[in-house]
C-alpha cells in the first residue's frame, strides 16, 4: 500500500491562493485506507475550503486514482463540475495526482505527501516495508527487508550501532539485522548469512522505471 499523509492545510491553501473554484478528487484504494482521500476526508476538505472562502464545484472518489483509463472515464462524468473549476485538489498519492494531471487541462495540486510503501499495522499506524528496489532480497532474509528496515540498507549484516536490539538512528526501530538473525536462527538457516553480498545493482532502480507485460 502507498502510505500518504495530508499536507498542512496552510500549504494547500497556498497552492490555491489565486484559485476560487476547486474540484476535489480522492482515491478508493490506498488514500482511502490511509484516511487521506476517501469520501469522508473529501467532505472534510470541502468544508474547510468553503470556510476559507473557496467554492467547491464537485468531487469524486476515483477508483483508483492511479488507473488512467478509469480516471479518464470517471472524470468524464464530472465534466460540468470540472469546467466550472479553476483547479483540482487531488487527495491521492503522488502517482494518483500525476494521473489526474495527465488527464485534465487545469492545474492539479496535491493535498497529500506520499510517504512510503508500507503496511497498516492497525488503523492509523503505518510502517514502511518496501523500497521497490527492483531486486527482492526477502528470500534469504527470513522475510525481513534489510533495504527498507535497516537505516543504512546494509546487505552484509549489522553495523555496530545497535543497542538492546534497537537502531541507533531511531531507538523506536528494531535493528533489522537482529530481527533477520533471530528468525534465521529459528529456522536453522544462519549459514545463509555467511555468504558475502556484492554491492546491490542500483541500475535496477534507476528511475523512471517502466514495465510492459505482453499479453
Amino acid at each position, binding site marked *: 500500500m502507498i502510505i500518504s499523509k495530508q499536507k498542512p492545510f496552510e500549504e494547500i491553501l497556498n497552492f490555491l491562493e489565486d484559485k476560487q473554484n476547486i474540484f476535489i478528487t480522492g482515491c478508493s484504494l490506498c488514500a482511502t485506507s490511509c484516511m487521506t482521500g476517501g469520501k469522508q476526508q473529501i467532505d472534510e476538505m470541502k468544508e474547510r475550503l468553503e470556510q476559507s472562502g473557496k467554492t467547491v464545484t464537485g468531487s469524486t472518489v476515483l477508483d483508483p486514482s492511479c488507473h488512467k483509463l478509469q480516471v479518464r472515464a470517471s472524470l468524464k462524468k464530472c465534466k460540468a463540475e470540472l469546467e466550472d473549476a479553476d483547479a483540482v485538489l487531488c487527495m491521492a498519492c503522488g502517482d494518483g495526482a500525476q494521473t489526474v494531471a495527465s488527464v485534465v487541462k487545469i492545474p492539479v495540486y496535491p493535498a497529500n505527501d506520499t510517504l512510503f510503501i508500507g503496511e497498516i499495522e492497525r488503523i492509523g499506524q503505518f510502517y514502511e516495508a518496501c523500497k521497490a528496489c527492483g531486486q527482492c532480497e526477502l528470500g534469504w532474509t527470513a522475510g525481513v527487508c534489510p533495504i527498507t528496515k535497516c537505516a*543504512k540498507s546494509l546487505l*552484509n549484516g*549489522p553495523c555496530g550501532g*545497535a543497542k*538492546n*536490539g534497537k537502531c541507533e538512528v531511531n531507538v523506536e526501530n528494531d535493528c533489522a539485522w*537482529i530481527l533477520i*538473525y533471530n528468525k534465521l536462527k529459528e529456522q536453522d538457516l544462519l549459514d545463509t548469512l*555467511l555468504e558475502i553480498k556484492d*554491492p546491490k545493482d542500483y541500475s535496477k532502480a534507476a528511475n523512471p522505471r517502466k514495465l510492459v507485460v505482453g499479453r
Partner: protein
Amino acid sequence: MNFKEKLERGDFVITAEMAPPKGIDFNHIKECARALKGRVDAVNVTDFQSAVVRASSLGGAKILLDEGLEPIMQITGRDRNRIAIQGELLSAAALGIQNVLALTGDHPSIGDHPEARGVFDMDSVNILQAATKLMNGYDMNGHELSGAPQFFLGASVTPLYDPLELQIIKIKKKIQAGAKFFQTQAVFDIKIIKDFMKRVENLNIKVLVGVIPLKSAGMAKYMNNNVPGICVPDEIIDRMQKAQDKTKEGLTIAAEFIQQIREEKICDGVHVMAIGAEENVATLLDMCGF
C-alpha cells in the same frame, strides 16, 4: 619496519587516532603528530567522523605521511558511491598511503548535516572487496588498471554486542573480503575483550583493542547511555568520580588496561582513541612505559 610488518611479525603494536580539522588549519594535528612520531606504529585518520564535515581522511592521511607518520586511512560508505570509493583508494595509494580501514560509516542523522542523503552504496565488506579487487589490478567491474595499489586492509568490530554471533559472522565476511587486521570499539572491561578473543581464537586474526582515556565520570556515563558497544564498568566510573585530577586518572586507567592487555598477551595491540585530546597520547605512552 612498518605497521604491517610489525603486526605480522607478532610485535605488540600501538595505533592512535586523529580527526582532520574542521577547516584548513592542520597545526594542531601536526603538533600531535610530531609528539607521536616514532612512538606509535600507525595513526588512524577518521573519515568525516560522526558524520561531521571536516577535511577528508585522504587529506589528513597525506599530511600525517608528510610528518613522517604511518597513516591508516579510514574510509566509509556513507558519503561516496562505488565510483568515488575506488577513486579515493587509487588516489590514496598513489600518494603513498598503504593502510586502509574500511567502515560502513555512521548515519548522517547523527552528524552536523542531518539533512544529507546517506549513500551506503557499499558497506564495509563491499569496500574491502573493492580494495582487494583494485590490488589485483582491476576495478570492481573487471576493468584493468594502469598500476595496481597495494594496501594493508583493516576493519572494525564491536566486541560488546548482543548477539555476538552476528558480529562474528560479519568478521568472517570481512576476512574473506580481505581484512588483515581489526580495531575494536573502545573496551573498558578486560573480561569483555577476553571473552571476545576466545570467540575469534580459531579465526587467526590480528586484533587491536580500542582504548579511550576517560576525561570525566560524566563522559563515561554519557558513553554508556549513548554509544552502542561501549560499557564503562561502575568501578571505573567510581574511580573517575573520586579522582582529583580527572585527566590523569583517565590516563592511569587506560595505562593499566593497556599493560594488562600486553602482559597477558590478550590482543595483538591497542588502538588509542583520544577523541579530541590527542595531546595526551604521548603521556599515556610514557605511563605505559612504551
